[in-house]
């Protein structure tokens, strides 16, 4: 890869997002390490095994995974200058993301009703922190997607390239990828 001023293979916006998610990955790595550190040390009270429902969360996770696919299609539509389909795929991505967040909300409400909260024990602490920060990142992604959709409906992003769409797409794939790791560590590790 040549790093020369006039011949960069990557433009500055996508480069910024890429390095940003490197930094973000380390942030999530630390939260995951905290979860892993305490995984076996919970002796009484709620744990992942006795309070989580992997099937239900697994189904809602599929919505988030699907949203990675739809935003990829959105990028394809942009390349083909298909403005209408770009809007449709962006809208679908937002709906899938909102569905995932809704599922997470249901799960949280259910847990809190059983008095499983962030201050109950280390499981509660690490679980709510990790999933909470992930949910926060999904929310930020949704806000960015809504802005994209609004701009697209107003007539922006005629293609074939757009740093904004591609940068948000990189971020969204990252949020999705983090969830795969988080889901594996919290749910699959407890039940498989």
């Amino acid at each position: 890869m040549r790093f020369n001023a006039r011949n960069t293979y990557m433009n500055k916006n996508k480069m910024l997002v890429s390095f940003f998610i490197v930094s973000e990955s380390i942030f999530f790595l630390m939260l995951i390490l905290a979860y892993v550190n305490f995984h076996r040390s919970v002796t009484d009270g709620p744990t992942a095994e006795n309070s989580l429902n992997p099937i239900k969360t697994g189904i809602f996770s599929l919505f988030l995974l699907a949203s990675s696919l739809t935003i990829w299609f959105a990028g394809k539509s942009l390349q083909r200058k298909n403005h209408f389909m770009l809007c449709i795929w962006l809208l679908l991505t937002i709906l899938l993301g909102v569905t995932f967040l809704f599922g997470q909300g249901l799960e949280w409400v259910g847990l809190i009703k059983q008095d499983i909260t962030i201050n109950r024990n280390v499981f509660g602490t690490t679980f709510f922190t990790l999933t909470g920060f992930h949910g926060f990142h999904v929310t930020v992604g949704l806000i960015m997607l809504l802005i994209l959709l609004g701009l697209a409906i107003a007539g922006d992003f005629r293609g074939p390239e757009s740093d904004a769409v591609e940068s948000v797409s990189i971020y969204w794939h990252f949020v999705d990828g983090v969830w795969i790791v988080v889901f594996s560590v919290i749910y699959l590790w407890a039940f498989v």
Partner: protein
Amino acid sequence: MSRIPLVPEITEPLPSIRESEGLLTWVASIDHKQIGIMYLIATLFFFLVGGIEALLMRIQLIRPENDFISPEVFNQLFTMHGTTMIFFVVMPFLIGIGVYLVPLMIGARDMAFPRLNALSYWLFVLGGLLLYFSFFTQSGAPDVGWFAYTPLSEKPFTLNKGPTYWALGLLATGIGSVASGLNNIVTIITLRTPGLTMRRLPLFVWMILVTSFLLIFVMPIITSAFAMLLLDRLLGATFFMPATGGSAILYQHFFWGFGHPEVYILILPAFGIISEVIPVFSRKPIYGYEFVAGSTVAIGLLSLGVWAHHMFAVGLGNVFNAFFAIASMLIAIPTGIKVLNWTATMWGGKIHFATPMLFAVAFLIEFVVGGLSGVAIASPPIDWQATDTYFIVAHFHYTLFGGSLFAIFAGVYYWFPKMSGRMPSERLGRWHFWLTVIGFNLTFLVQHLIGLMGMPRRVYTYHDLPYWGDMNLISTVGSLILGLSVIIFVWNIITSLRSGMPAGNNPWKAWTLEWATTSPPPVHNFDLVPPVNSRRPLWDLAHPDMPDK
């Protein structure tokens, strides 16, 4: 070089947008030069505040059983002094001077993301205000030390709001630091002028690049720890509370996982300043450019794997301790390479001892002292003896004051003409230099001895044991001399800004691109960027008959 070329009188003291003058052009600025100068002004303010905190502590310690300030206030003072000097003086100064210089040194118009640049600066200001706002709360500033070990910093042990403001302030500053790290990386990779390859990049820019990678790698570690600490304190989470299943050691791992790379964030740009100053004032190109740049990358990588040498006293086991002791000692190799390179650059050079060079040479000596005591305490048995004593205080002041701060002074005197268009006073500069060297060594050299004699750090007073009172008196006298030197420094800045000799474009006859434009540079930095065919473009321009290879 002693002859200053005559140029027209400067009408524009600092770079600003010409149409409208006033405070708003600064507050709303996204110009990297204005933001850089705002960084420097803010860090000077915090430097004075942190310095006053240190002087108050030294006055308290001037004699045994002194009761000048209460133990509660003393705890707040050492916490605020450490936090301020690290996070609100050295770090933002180096980021700020980087923001000012990097676009100029690579021949660019501005940073890659000017608005993000402004965001970084204002997050740093917000963090400082949050931290210092704690003084106005009912129970005062944080008093848990600059690393705020848990469970002491947890709610049951520290009920006041100090640590909450501490964590919030550092969280804001930390996010700003990540943003400026990202900004620097993209700027340096994408905005270099044609011909300025990575192997021709000024070493200061190289150091900023490595530092920026360290920033984006390690700031999230401490950001996560601050988030956890805040959740513990505000929502009753139990991350770091052993009583309810948490782990206090985990906090130490997280803190030092950030904290040790952080000391390289504080020293690598300082190395960069030294690598620019020493060649120019020795009239020789840097010796072993590749080794200086390469050893920086090596330091950056090694620094990620040495954090637990801060935790030898925890009792993590011999294998664990041995690993971190060896890794820590390895860092002496790339650092030693640099010291040899700088020395070899001076060797046989036509050395001109202007103020920047005085500080650079003093940096070399003081930093080596700090480095040697650092290698010593990287050995666990020695660390067990010296930990939490004044020996440690002496060690890190030799690296952070004798190292980073001496380099910062060298950088200020070196680039002041570029930023202001005027020369700093050489006479006041020499007074500042000699008082700093004398005051610094008086203050901290004896602290090695006090520490080895067993005086613990962070105690507000001590018994009248043999020699303790005398040595603390020497240390306090030294610190007062340092206070005087800072007054002279500030006086020099103020008077030189008003009535210094006009500097011209390149008063030091330096070779990097920032000296090709006017002093101060115009808003757009360059009318024409000179061609870059070597590491010293301005040398080539001045000597077309014998250009650098």
